């Protein structure tokens, strides 16, 4: 199937698991960052920079970037195969869906590369 071949793992069950594991990682990261900002009201550049140059934080950030890519792919794949269908768009649906997924893939890769540059380059 043209819809199945583009999913993350070729297995719905594995995708389901990957979506949930990545969700937990993303939730922990977001809550941690929000908590850090809330606990440091007058945050200055030195503290902010120190937080992100810590090796543990860099690994945590990279893990989150991977989780974000996985989570976004599973999510966008689900949306595109649910709504960009021949029933909704007629005979060009497969082409439109492929282009949409390709654009998502390029965007996600760009975000990933940019993120690595930010977290490990500064």
């Amino acid at each position, binding site marked *: 199937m043209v819809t199945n071949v583009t999913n993350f793992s070729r297995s719905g069950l594995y995708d389901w698991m990957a979506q*949930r594991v990545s969700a*937990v990682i993303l939730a922990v990261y*977001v809550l941690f960052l929000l908590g850090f900002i809330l606990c440091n009201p007058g945050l200055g550049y030195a503290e*902010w920079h120190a937080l*992100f140059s810590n090796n543990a934080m860099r690994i945590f950030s990279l893990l989150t970037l991977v989780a974000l890519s996985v989570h*976004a792919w599973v999510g966008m794949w689900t949306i595109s195969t649910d709504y960009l269908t021949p029933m909704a768009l007629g005979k060009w649906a497969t082409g439109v869906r492929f282009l949409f997924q390709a654009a998502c893939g390029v965007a996600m890769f760009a975000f990933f590369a*940019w*993120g690595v*540059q930010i977290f490990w380059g500064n």
Partner: protein
Amino acid sequence: MLLYGLDKSLMSAEGFAEVKECLTSPLAKFVIWGLLSALLYHLVAGVRHLIMDMGIGETLEGGKLGSKIVLVVSTILIVLLGVWIW
């Protein structure tokens, strides 16, 4: 997702002060509020999914109650977020 990239510029920018300065403008605050509101709602709704995966609230009644709880909790958090930003 594209706009979310803006958040990241915060770290790469040498001018931390510049970003801080920018975030004092009402428009920037509103945009940040919008982005974080969407994120918070997604987070709360996602936690509901995980709770339902554990088999809690899977009935029709439970589903309705759960969706209301998600809306109420998200609204409270989004309002608190707004208070914190301004």
